């Protein structure tokens, strides 16, 4: 959900881009992080924990806590709270431990 009206702030969002979350095509902006774009579309569940398979989302949003690790363009363990969105990106929930592609 994007803020429509704000008493103090305005946002210069730049260019709109399309990206994929799982199989869904979504829209976001180049100036925002993947996590921000997902939250704008109402998606809060970013991965499942390694052992208990519990859903996990964004917690610190500044790259410290590793709660939001996702698979981006096939690469696991990407901190989506500090990674900017790009046109055509493929973003997936990370289920358990991330495996590097060979």
């Amino acid at each position: 959900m994007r803020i429509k009206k704000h008493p103090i702030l305005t946002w210069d969002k730049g260019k709109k881009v399309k990206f994929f979350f799982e199989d869904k095509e979504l829209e976001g902006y180049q100036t925002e992080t993947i996590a921000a774009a997902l939250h704008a579309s109402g998606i809060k569940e970013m991965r499942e924990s390694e052992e208990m398979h519990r859903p996990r989302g964004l917690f610190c949003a500044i790259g410290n806590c590793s709660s939001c690790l996702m698979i981006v363009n096939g690469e696991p363990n990407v901190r989506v709270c500090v990674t900017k969105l790009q046109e055509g990106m493929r973003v997936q929930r990370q289920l358990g431990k991330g495996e590097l592609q060979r």
Partner: protein
Amino acid sequence: MKNVDIAIVGGGPAGLCAAITAADLGAKVILVEQDDALGGQLVKQTHMFFGSEKQHAGTRGIDIGTMLVEQVESNPNIEIMLNATAMGYYPDGVLGINQEENFIKIKPLKMILATGASERMIAFPNNDLPGVFGAGAVQTLMNVYGIKPGKRVLMVGAGNIGLIVSYQLLQAGVEVAAIVEGSPNIGGYLVHASKIRRLGVPVLTSHTILEALGDREVTGAVIAKLDEKWNIIKGTEQTVVVDTICLAVGLTPLTELIDQGGGKLAYIRELSGYVPIHNQELESTVSGIYVAGDLAGVEEASSAMVEGKLAGAVAAKALGYKPKAAEQIIEEAHQELFDLRSGPVGAGIRAGISKLQEVRQRC
């Protein structure tokens, strides 16, 4: 290998002020920031700052950030490294940096660490559900990206951050169901609390969160009243329907780099956890490594800016840059810190600092 007078790690309020001060005195500075922009957490502080004119009181944090960043960018003595994470400090005086998958080595004569702090978590069932955010994350989503974290929020903690972020949520058009605070008193400034209450948000002191509800995401929370010994009073449990739980339960210093670099730490509750042991001129137990801002003990951004100035002047003076001018800045900074920490609001910090000095004498 890059050689430089002073390497500063962290481009928030403390790091920016350290860089400006040291560079103005003539030192060559490299400022290392892990994010893709400078400013640290100032970029999301939409409220006007307290303190005195010297710390830009009455100006919004976000505007102070812009001003400091402009000063850093236009200073020829400062080299800025963005997207750069300081990974380690080695016994031969080398600072290793990962910048966009490149490993870069810097050998500074002095180093100022201003790595900041991270959000604290509290224990309750389901605290890992999506929809439970740290207060800083809520500010990032709203104030940096213009995105609402949810529709209705339970705020945990009535310190300044809890109060200010609640007000910012209301400004963004998000409903705040209540603020719960375990202590019988509101920790933050009453001017903030009154603003929230006037807008109809209950501030429930002696209340805590018992658990988050929800299967894949937060759908509610159970809260309850506490007695004077912080025990839950049976029968006072109530469920609030919220999709977001915001934790404003404090911060804890990010000590990894100073710890790895050999700096000794001490646990000081009033300074928010483990802090690097340092003297009044902010030098850690490693000679030539200074600490500033939340890393040196969690306080307001106003104090972080002054500590940055102090560390910058001390480091530049130690290298022989304009010692007289540096000495004057050092004296001014000490006075500003004294003023910021005076009065009842600064009592905790004052206690923390005197504990720290006791620990330092012993080691």
